[in-house]
Every structure is written in C-alpha cells, then in structure tokens.
C-alpha cells in the first residue's frame, strides 16, 4: 500500500520536474522576444528628453486628448449596447442562444481591420471616416468582452436573491440596482477596463476609419517611428501608453468579494415567461442586426462596382490587376498561411510546456506568477511590441529587422498568453486519481502523461492551434511595423487596398476582407 502511495506521489513529482524543466524554453522565448524589446523601450525612454517634450507638443497633446475621450466614449457605448444581450444570455435560455453568443463574439476574433472595413462599407460615404465609424467599430469589436466577462458572473448570481428582493417589495429596477448590480459590479468594471484598454490602444480601426483627422497614440507611435523615423518620440509615447494602461487595469481589476459562495445557476427558459419574452427577443434581434449588418454590407459591397453589380472585384484579387499598385493578393495569402502555420508549430508546444508547469505546480503563487508573466503581452499593445522588436533586433549579430522570421516571433509572443489560457484550465481540472489509476495499471510517468493528460486535452489542443492560427492570420499592429516588401499579410493588404482611392481597389478590399472572414470562420470551426 505504501509502495503504491509512493509511486503515485512520484508520478506527480516526475511530471512537475519535467514540466518545470521544459518551461525554461517558453520562459526564454518571452525574455528574448518580450522582456528585452520592452526593456529596451523603457531604457531609451528613461534616458531621453522626448518624454517631457511630447507633453509640450500641441499636436501630440491633441492626439492624447482624442485617444482618451474616444476610449472613454467607446467603453461607455459598448457597455450600453452589450447590456441587454448580456442580461438575456445570463438570465434566460432561448432558442438560438449559442448562435447569438457566437455572433456577438465573432468580431473579437477577427482582425480589427476587417471590423473597420465592415463598418466602412455600412456607413454612408460622408461618414465613412470619422468618429461615428470609430465608435461603431469599437463597440462591435468589444461587445464580446462585456458579454463574456459579465455574463459569466451574472450566471453565478443566484436567481433567488433577485426573486427574494421582489417578494420583499422591490420593483424590477430597484432589485437590479440593490441586489444584482452589487454582484456583477466588479465584472462590469473589469470588462470596462479591458474594453478601455483595447480602445485606448486602437490601431487598425483608426488606420481605416480615422482618416487624416483622427489619430490615437498607437497610430502616432507608428507614424513617428515608421514615417518620420522619430524613434525617441515613439518610444516615449509607448511608455506613456503603458503607464495609462497599467493604471486603468490596476483600478478596474475584478475583485471577488462574493466569489467563494457563488456557482453557475440554471437559467429559466424564456418561453415560460411571456412578460420577459418580448424584451429578450428585442435584445436578440437588436444584437444580431447591430453585429451582423456591417458584415453583410461588406460582402454586398464586394459585388458593387460603379453602382452596378459585378464580380470583377473578386476577379481582380487574383488576375494581376492589383499588381500595378504593388498589391499581390496570392502572395499575401500564402504569406499569411505560412506565418500562421509556423506560429501554431512554435506556440502550441511552448504553451503546452507552460500549461503543464502551471497545472502540476502545487503552489498557487507559482501559478499566479506564470499567469502574470505570460499574460503581460496581452496588456501590451502590439504596436509597442513591434517597435520594441525593431529597435532591439537591428544590430549585428541579431539583425533580423527585415527578416520575416521576426514577424513570426511577434505573432507567437502575442498568441502565447491566449494559448496558455486555453490549455491550463483543462490540464488543471484533471483529477489526480486518473493518473493514479493509470500508474496502478502499470503505466510509467511518461505513458501516464501521454495516455491521460495528453488524451484528455486533445480537443483544447486543437482549439489552441485554431486560436494561434487566428491570431497570426489577423495580427495587424506588430505586423505593420515588421512587415517588409514581399512579406505583406492579408490584413496589411486589406489596409493598403482600403487606404487607396478608386472603386475597384476599394471593392477588392471588401472582397479580400470577406474572403478572410470565411477563412477565419473555417479555421475556428475546424478547431
């Protein structure tokens, strides 16, 4: 009996040791491709006067002010638009619920360039670049953040507490304000912080919809670094942006006051509650229209040329017409697929090593440390990462500045935190007794890991691969920095097409964006 116990303890100890050793590789990856570039930015920003100079520059002050207020307004609008559907999906069961949640979440996995293209295709010409489009795109893109985060918490609030408040005489509004709101407040504030971060660091949307008038800090960093070669100002802006994000995320970090007592509760089916049915239906239809319409418009616009129906825009994607403006769609597609394949091949094993180290660790602080260290790239703007890489890897012996491999490194660094999240939770949830059973049946530690752990996380591994591919295919911020002639990806090509005047070019941009949506849907549904 004691022998068995010792063998079982040994299994976990062996797995833990192996996971810790293998996690050296992803840790080294993050140090080289995240910590060094960011550290380089910090050291430059702290050693130059540009940081004080930018605050004295009225043009940059204008950019800072615009970045701040558009982010605040976008966050407020996202919360308002997301609230009805979040309520409907948290409190009620209804036919088509998964479809609606999927639709509301879809724009989030699409590149911001595509969302911006869809919004541009929807709005009338005179509004196609300006603040209306920017806000519209930000709301569509971030709807998923609020729906996912808030509804996860709302579903945990016991429905009977709200019913108890009603039986005590509180109206529906008072019940929400006095009982439900305190339970979901922390999740709403947390979601608002994340939405603010995305809007504050908005790049793709502003590039497509901002026109010459509107620029965020993120766009300004790009413009200063790439167009003016003013790296010092760009670096100072990155630092300023990181400070604001750190403050906002710190202030809005969710607190779990009632977390320990809360579990997910069964929802009631809306068909049994005629009074609420109309409200739920209205929320569902409004969300489907709000999110779906721009993509329908984008698809339709790809078949419109000179106010007539035509498939020429689609034909021009591959018949060489666009070569004259330096756009090679076939090349961009093969580049994107190649980079995505490499990103999957590198990121999934790295994430698996980290997920094992996190799941097999007996110390919660080790898990937290891994989550914070690996999660940091999520809170860093892609443009900042791209800039950091450019200024770090531009000297011999590691002069990769114009090498396509640096682009893949950026994609992997951005995808790693998401991949870890997909793999860590299922690995942690595997009961130790399963491994013990395998050991008692004669499996070695390695066989146990292969037959139990790896077999159980087969599906999460596929999802992880799909997610990494989607991140790589859609990445725009860092790619804009790191891409060189011949290395264009689909998102940068779409941005180039939509950035040029002319009906044919614009419609081809919409056609390529539509094709890309189909590609992403295909990748994600396979996973």
């Amino acid at each position, binding site marked *: 009996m004691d022998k068995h116990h010792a063998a079982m303890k040994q299994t976990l100890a062996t797995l833990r040791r192996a996971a810790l050793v293998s996690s050296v590789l992803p840790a080294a990856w993050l140090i080289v491709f995240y910590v060094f570039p960011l550290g380089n930015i910090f050291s430059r920003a702290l050693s130059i006067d540009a940081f004080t100079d930018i605050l004295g520059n009225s043009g940059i002050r204008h950019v800072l002010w615009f970045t701040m207020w558009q982010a605040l307004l976008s966050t407020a609008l996202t919360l308002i638009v997301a609230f009805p559907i979040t309520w409907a999906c948290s409190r009620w069961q209804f036919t088509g619920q998964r479809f609606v949640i999927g639709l509301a979440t879809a724009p989030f996995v699409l590149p911001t360039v595509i969302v911006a293209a869809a919004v541009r295709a929807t709005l009338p010409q005179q509004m196609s670049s300006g603040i209306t489009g920017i806000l519209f795109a930000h709301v569509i893109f971030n709807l998923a953040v609020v729906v996912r985060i808030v509804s996860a918490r709302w579903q945990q609030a*016991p429905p*009977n*507490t709200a*019913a*108890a*408040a*009603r*039986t*005590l*005489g*509180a*109206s*529906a509004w*008072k*019940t929400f304000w*006095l*009982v439900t709101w*305190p*339970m979901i407040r922390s999740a709403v504030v947390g979601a608002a912080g994340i939405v603010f971060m995305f809007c504050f660091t908005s790049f793709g949307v502003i590039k497509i919809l901002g026109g010459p008038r509107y620029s965020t800090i993120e766009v300004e960093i790009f413009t200063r670094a790439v167009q003016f070669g003013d790296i010092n100002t760009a670096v100072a802006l990155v630092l300023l942006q990181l400070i604001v994000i750190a403050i906002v995320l710190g202030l809005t970090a969710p607190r779990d*006051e*009632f977390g*320990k*007592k809360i579990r997910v509760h069964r929802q*009631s*089916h809306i*068909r*049994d*509650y*005629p*009074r609420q049915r109309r409200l739920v239906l209205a929320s569902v239809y409004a969300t489907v229209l709000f999110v779906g319409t721009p993509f329908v418009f984008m698809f339709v616009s790809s078949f419109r040329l000179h106010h007539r129906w035509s498939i020429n825009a689609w034909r021009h994607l591959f018949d060489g017409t666009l070569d004259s403006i330096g756009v090679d769609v076939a090349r961009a597609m093969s580049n994107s697929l190649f980079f995505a394949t490499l990103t999957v091949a590198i990121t999934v094993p790295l994430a698996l090593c980290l997920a094992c180290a996190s799941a097999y660790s007996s110390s919660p602080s080790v898990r937290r440390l891994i989550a914070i260290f690996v999660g940091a790239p999520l809170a860093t703007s892609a443009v900042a990462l791209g800039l950091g890489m450019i200024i770090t890897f531009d000297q011999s012996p590691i002069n990769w500045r114009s090498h396509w491999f640096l682009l893949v490194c950026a994609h992997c660094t951005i995808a790693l935190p998401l991949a870890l999240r997909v793999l860590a939770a299922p690995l942690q949830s595997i009961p130790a007794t399963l491994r013990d059973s395998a050991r008692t049946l004669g499996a070695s530690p390695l066989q146990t890991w292969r037959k139990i752990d790896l077999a159980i996380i087969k599906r999460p591994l596929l999802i992880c691969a799909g997610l990494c591919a989607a991140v790589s295919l859609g990445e725009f911020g860092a790619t804009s920095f790191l891409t060189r002639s011949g290395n264009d990806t689909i998102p940068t090509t779409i941005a180039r097409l939509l950035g040029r005047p002319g009906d044919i070019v614009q419609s081809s941009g919409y056609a390529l964006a539509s094709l890309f949506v189909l590609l992403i849907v295909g990748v994600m549904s396979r996973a």
Partner: protein
Amino acid sequence: MLDVHNICVVLGGTPIVQDFSLQIPTGTTTALVGPSGSGKTTILHAICGITPVTSGSVSYDGRDITNTPIHRRKIGMVFQDSDLFPHLTVWHNIAFGLAFITPRLGARAVTERVQELLALVGMETFGDRRIDDLSGGEQRRVALARALAPWPHLLLLDEPFSALDSALRLRLIADIGDILSATRTTALIVTHDPAEAEILATRTVSISSPSTT
C-alpha cells in the same frame, strides 16, 4: 384567505403543476407535503408570482392577484437555500423590505422593527455580521426575519429545514412554530417530511406528482 384555484404551471413544455387548488384561512399554518419532484416549490413560486401560471387563478381575500407583479403581492418567501443578500449585513438584509413600504417608514421605525425581529429570531447581537460568517441555522433565522419584516399578508416557506443537522433542525422547527404563532402569520410550509408538517401546521395537504389535490 388565500385561494389557489385550479392552477396549472408548464415549464419547458412539461406540465409541473396540474389543476392544483388550495385554500389557506387567515392566521393558520398549512403544510404542503409531497415527494421530491412533485412540484411543491413551483406551487410556492406560482403563488408569489416568481413563476407565471399557465391557467387558473390565485386570489387573496377575494382579490385576484394572478397577474399582480411580485413586489405588489405582499407575500413573503423563505427560500430553500435562504438566498440572503451576500453583500449586505444581517441588519441590512432584514431592513431591505422595509424600504419599499408605503407610506415610508422613518429611520427610527425601521431600527425598531429590525431590532424586534432580531430579538424574535434570537439574534440580537448579530446585526453587524456578514452573511458569510453565519452558520446554516443562523442564515435560516435571518431569512425568516427578513421575510417577516415588511408585515406580509402571507408567508411561504420552502423546505426551511433542509440540509440542517437533526439537533439544529428540531430546535429550528420549534422556534419557527413559536414565531409563526406569536406573529399570527398566515403561512404555507413546503416539506417532504410529514413529521415536520405535523409539528408546525394546523393543516396538512398532500400532493403527488405532477401536483394535483
């Protein structure tokens, strides 16, 4: 008097309650006894308006309240899991319903009522406690005090003694029996234990599955 007349409740296409009728005279305690899954909780939810009835009617003192919103029915409810407000203290949980009484109660009247109820359930010193710090039995007492606070016409208790150990259960049965008779509250208690029903109620109604009487 509460008059439940031929109510039917269908949830998710399944009839949970069929043609259920019940009368509860004012000032009495009635026990609804039946096996698990017989629809007892659904009947309570239908009476207080949490779950809509598919057909039939609920009236109180001759007034049809079938379509009256929950918060205007003046029917208190003690839920199976107590379902106290986790973000409020014991005192604020009990005072919660007093904020919605018209005409509005003054601060002094609210304090007096809360103190009276804390004393009634034997928890005078627990006002500042957080809900998380209470034991299962204490939570049931607070839930009872909270439901009684706004002077409801009728009190519904859904398995108020479930998941308690036997000693605590016996003590709480005796205490709740005393409180109901001291406050002369009209009450309907749902239980699956006929012994509990016998101790607490003046009348027992048995139901089978799906619920009919």
